[in-house]
């Protein structure tokens, strides 16, 4: 086993702020949208908290973006430019999650600080961080001040469409959270990835070993 420094401090802080914000936004989102199903707080309280954590998330996202762009680490999100290599990598990774993991095969991807994500993670996180979260932020800001952004909302097709996009992404993030947390338990041990997200260091088996 060897220890590698996989998650720098900034990334870890961003991650946990993100994680907490997401949880709060999901819960308050339920309170805003599904009041006829579950009613814990008032609508006003739910909206206020949702707005606060929305802005925290925006701030955090900007921090993350600046860090990754300045440090040059953003490339970890960029899949290989070789289509064949990317498709092969995805199939190999999908085969592992769909078959190999059950028969005790070794994870084809070995995380290093420069190559942190497998091809499937790359395509998923790239979409999430570059497309979905910015879109969620934009729609969130538009919904925060409907009158002030009336022009832009009009361009987007109306408040109903803007909110539908926001809710659609909200549902995606909520459902993805289950997958994300589960996948986080598929490390060398159940808590290895999670521990690494606190310490920065992850214990990985020596190349050639598998458990």
């Amino acid at each position, binding site marked *: 086993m060897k220890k590698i420094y996989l998650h720098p401090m900034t990334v870890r802080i961003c991650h946990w702020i993100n994680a907490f914000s997401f949880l709060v936004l999901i819960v308050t989102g339920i309170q805003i949208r599904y009041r006829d199903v579950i009613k814990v707080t008032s609508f006003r309280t739910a909206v206020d908290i949702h707005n606060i954590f929305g802005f925290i998330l925006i701030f955090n996202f900007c921090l993350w973006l600046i860090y990754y762009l300045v440090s040059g680490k953003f490339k970890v999100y960029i899949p290989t430019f070789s289509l064949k290599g990317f498709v092969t990598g995805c199939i190999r990774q999908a085969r592992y999650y769909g078959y190999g993991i059950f028969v005790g095969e070794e994870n084809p991807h070995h995380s290093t600080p420069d190559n942190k994500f497998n091809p499937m993670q790359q395509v998923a996180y790239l979409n999430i961080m570059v497309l979905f979260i910015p879109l969620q932020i934009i729609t969130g800001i538009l919904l925060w001040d409907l009158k002030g952004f009336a022009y832009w909302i009009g361009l987007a097709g109306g408040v109903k469409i803007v909110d539908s996009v926001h809710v659609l992404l909200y*549902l995606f993030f909520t459902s993805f959270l*289950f997958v994300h947390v589960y996948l986080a338990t598929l490390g060398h041990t159940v808590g290895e990835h999670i521990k690494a997200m606190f310490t920065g260091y992850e214990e990985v088996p020596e190349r050639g070993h598998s458990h």
Partner: protein
Amino acid sequence: MSRFYDEVVVASGTSVEMSRDKSGRANHESSLTDDRPARFQKIRTAGIVVLGPLSGLLFICLLPLMSLLIVVTLLSKMASASDVMQSEEAAMCMGCHASQDVVKTFGNKEKMSVHISERHFKDSVHSFLACTGCHSKVSMDDHPSAKYASRREFAVQISQACKGCHSNEQLMVKPMHRAAISRSNAPPCSECHGSHSIRKSAGWKEAASTSQYCLTCHKKDLSTSVNGETLSLMIDEKLLRGSVHSSHECSHCHSEYSKTTHPLGEFKNKRELSIAFSGVCKGCHADKYQQHQGSIHASLLRQGNRNAPVCTDCHGAHTVGPKLLAETLSGTPCRKCHESTFEAYKSSVHGQAKMSGNTHAPICSSCHSAHQVKPALASRSPKATCFGCHKDAAALHKEWLPNADLHLDAIACTACHVPEAEHTVYLRVTDSKSGASIEKAKLKEYLGSGYNDLTGARANGLDDKNLWDVYQQLSERKSAAGITGTIGLQDCNKSHSLASKKWAVRQCDSCHDANSKFFKTVVMAIIAPDGHEEHYAVNRAVLGSVITLLPINQFYAIGGTRLRFLDILGILMVFGGMSVPIVHLTLRFLTIPIREAKRLNKLRREGRR
């Protein structure tokens, strides 16, 4: 006459006596002149020559004077004889009729004083007549007690006497008389002219104002009949004098009438007369008349609703009160037709303030305007009406209400400030640029046969597909139009029951909840030519339909009108996300033996080495 002859006789006698006296003296003088006969003879001759012609001349001059004296004396004797006759009859009549206490009771128990004012009668144009000149059935010997059913019947009967002197032909010269005579229920002469105190019109007509002249007749209980309707022609002088038009003469409004002309009005019925006469007000109040032309009332009138109010319906005809009176609870004319609305207003914070004496508190015209009366705009243009007075309302709402401007655009003030009322979502086809509702005629033009998609009768109201069709047709023919929505009250009367702001809805949950009562009913509102809105039921499911994502893209309350499609998709996505770890973990659990076997095989292979 005898006195006249007596006097004449006496005068002749005197003349004769004088003649005797002269001759006597002459005789005496002739006895004295016997001594101087020639001298006296000359003097006598000269006297005869001079005095003779002088006496003749004097006699000729006195003759006409004496004749005139005789005629005057004769006439005065004749008049004196008539006076004697009339005064005897009058004295006899006035013996009773001078008393103020004598009263005649008619068959209908109506009472009438039979008192005659001697002074007024003597001043009247008929003072030369004896009582029996008109009251022919009565004489100094007989006073039959006639029985009349009513005072009017008595007046009609007695007025027949007028015809004795005033022939129909003579009366027909005046149009009003001509009209009156031709009617079976014409008022008796005495109704206008009075009875015992009729004065010659030349004596007072010129001095009287036009109004005084008109009121001579019109302050009496006059009426006319038009197509079976009775139109009172009586003007209450007191009310007229108390109106804001008290300084005007009748002819200022009734310009074709004057002290010399009185044409006969021609109109189909009383209502048409009122409508026609409303044009008269325009003469002075052109601005108000123009405002009225732009009102819902004038619009209804133009469409053929002859009961739609015109000037006199609100202001009265001859009793026009001051503006301030119309702004009082008892004086506002709107309550006459809009009674239930007015009752709702009285219960409101505005009505209560008015009742407590706050003269600045709004009343009907404060919101609807006095002349350019518009239909209720509360659900169409929520802010416009209330913000006219509540200028700080927007700022006050911003203090606590997120997206206050948006709320104030989409929600009628009444929706929150009449908390107990039922709500409705009003959908409208509006111009995308101006935001103004597109009127019915334009809408028909834009939609063609597709207009029926909006108005066709359906059991459950318009559905999402209908709205989609409308949206598509609008996009094809008029791209700058869309369907917008506002929240208002179901019953416009309730809009007037505004409560104190401490009772207003402040909880966001009231709207932002799928079970909110604000979204229970939905209608499509189309502005008819008269300004009224026609409402067509819409199935409330359209608010949550994904098909209306584009057609109704601007009306949306988070949590209140959410899309059902996203609800279903959300359940699938979340359960899908949860199922990944569950299924994967289950498979991993089930495949533990495979991995265990593989691990043992591997250990075994490593052990062999």
